[in-house]
């Protein structure tokens, strides 16, 4: 516990500004989600449960708002006067936005949530004391708290199913906060493999679980710094940049062809997830 550590190394784990602070080199993991192709099938959510050892809390706790879905599908009904079943619905997959200037990071009293050099918002389960300040300050409310000791709770994982838990992901005990990690275990494995060959991870070598299962390819994920990456090209085509806090098209009142936006950009957390607006009639 040296003062040196506090004064000099600390800033590595904080980002106040996505570009000015420290360049993302060689990785900046980012995502884009095309809401026009999303059908709301929930496959991403299910895949996330399987990949990240998420506890299945059951109906009662779900109703209490204690569900642990890192990836949630939000359903919004169209308000065009039609009633169900004619009423249209829209879906929005929501997970941790891996903000560059994350509101959750600065408030954690024990520094359990930090910024990594490759642009992730990490969560250290062993360090977390469960003050839940991060969740309180998260504008998206995508952080999930272990309200119970799920691994020992009945029915969360029936006995025989403990064998199918992902060994690359720790099972969280009670009293800690958790959230989407962009499947950091996969990223890490890919980085290690690439490093062995003396290069960086190429486009397509790593997929998040949600991306992998999406039947309509609505989710693309990759290295934003890599010009070859699909996510890079999408962000560029939509003129969405990491350090913007508003899109030019917002001033053009729907005349723009651009569809890219990031949620709650105006709060300047600089999220790493870009959404593409729906173009279908019901979306207007």
């Amino acid at each position, binding site marked *: 516990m040296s003062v040196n550590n506090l004064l000099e190394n600390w800033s590595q784990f904080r980002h106040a500004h996505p570009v000015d602070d420290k360049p993302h080199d060689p990785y900046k993991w980012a995502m884009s989600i095309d809401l026009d192709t999303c059908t709301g099938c929930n496959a991403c959510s299910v895949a996330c449960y399987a990949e990240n050892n998420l506890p299945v809390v059951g109906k009662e706790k779900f109703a209490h708002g204690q569900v642990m879905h890192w990836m949630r599908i939000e359903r919004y009904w169209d308000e065009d006067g039609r009633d169900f079943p004619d009423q249209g619905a829209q879906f929005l997959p929501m997970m941790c936005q891996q903000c560059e200037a994350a509101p959750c990071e600065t408030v954690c009293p024990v*520094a359990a949530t930090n910024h990594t050099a490759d642009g992730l918002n990490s969560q250290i389960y062993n360090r977390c004391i469960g003050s839940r300040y991060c969740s309180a300050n998260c504008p998206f409310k995508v952080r999930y708290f272990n309200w119970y000791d799920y691994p020992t709770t009945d029915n969360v994982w029936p006995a025989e199913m403990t064998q199918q838990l992902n060994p690359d992901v720790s099972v969280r005990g009670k009293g800690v906060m958790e959230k989407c990690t962009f499947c950091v275990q996969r990223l890490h494995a890919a980085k290690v493999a690439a490093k062995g060959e003396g290069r960086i991870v190429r486009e397509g070598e790593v997929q998040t679980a949600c991306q992998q299962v999406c039947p309509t390819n609505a989710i693309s994920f990759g290295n934003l710094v890599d010009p070859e990456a699909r996510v890079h090209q999408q962000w560029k085509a939509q003129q969405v940049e990491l350090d913007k806090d508003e899109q030019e098209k917002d001033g053009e009142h729907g005349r723009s062809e651009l569809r890219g936006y990031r949620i709650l950009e105006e709060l300047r957390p600089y999220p790493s997830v870009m959404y593409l607006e729906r173009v279908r009639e019901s979306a207007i």
Partner: protein
Amino acid sequence: MEKDIREDIAWAKINGDVLKSLENPRKLYWVIVFAALAAFGVGVGCEVYQYNVGMGVANLDNPHVWGLYIATFIFWIGMSHSGTLLSAILHLMHADWRKPIYRFAEAMTTFSLMTAGLFVMVHIGRLWQFYYSLPYPNERGIWPNFQSPLLWDAMAIFTYLSSSVIFLYVGMIPDLAIARDNIHAGWRKKLYTLLSLGWEGTDRQWRNFRVTYLTVACFLIPLAVSVHSIVASDFAMSQQPGWHVTSFPPYFVAGALYSGCAAIITLFIILRYVFKFEEYMTLPILKKTVRLTFAIAMVWTYLNAVEFASVWYSHDGASKDVLIQKMTGTYAFAWWGMIFCGSIVPLVLAIKRFQTNIPVLLVVSLLLNLGMWLERWMIVSPTFSHGYYPWTWDHDQWPSLVQWGMVFGSFGWFTLLFMIFCKVFPSVSMYEVKEMVYHRSLHLKKGDTAEQGAH
């Protein structure tokens, strides 16, 4: 103006009256102690259950990750402030009337801080790892996060608590010596002998004592202001609608002094009866406290109005929505209850007839504190129920009985500590009451001489 204290009380009588409180209080004392013990037991039971099963039993959820624990934490922190106001600030201002009542007010400060500390503990998800939030030397080279208002909080409270304990203790030394000299042999005599540090009342001791006391008092005042400002930063520094308000620190400090003064009135009335302190805790002193409370109530009301107005006329739609939710949504009853108890009820205190009416004041002071508790709840919960992200709006979350049980238990814990303190230590400052009596008699004598000279 009536006099604060009779000038013809003999010093031996002061000693006798106050020391009697260490021996034989009224029966009501024991009733209160056992009721407090029972209430505390309920709280402990709830905590054991929550510790074993998980925070989920408190009925917290996403987005309601904070609940009554944080609200009640602020409440107890707030209550601690008036002790410092009475004992330190009024000491510097030479307001003599504080003398008979500051001791118990200062004890209230210490014990309400201890109660607030408990809420930090029951709130966190991994209680067994609370020490991670302290900057202790460790083999991993890890510091806590100095950017976090919660960390500032932990440090501010710890500093304030330790300073308050020192202040309470230092101010008590001459009285402990009196107790040492007068009490029958037994464990208490040993305790007082130890704690009075060989006090003999020599000139040199008195001089050192005065300097020390004044120094600690000066040190404590900025702390009292900073502590609640920092608690306010927990909210004001966050980004959430309804919390991200610049006026929060002064608003919190005003609210703190307000609830503290109300609590002083309540405890004044109880102690005065239970320990038969009618001679010292006189009605004129109560009247002054009541007027102080009224003034602070109006400051609080004003700051409330400032906050609402600045939200209402701002362009921050989300904050405005939260405000409208508070007024009309699920929590409307609590919000309007807060306005009623916090801003309407204190108007009673403006009426002269009621300023010394004990039953009325007891009811009013309890209502004021109810209002201030509701205020804290209304700071915490509505923001969670109606935040930035509409998908997570949740207007139907209610604290479970476990949460209520712990809130209830905290009152038991506080009362228990306070009542035990008053029985073990002199809760009226004997040496300062003597000073007060002495100054009054001096004043009178001067008046007499002047009169004689005129003849």
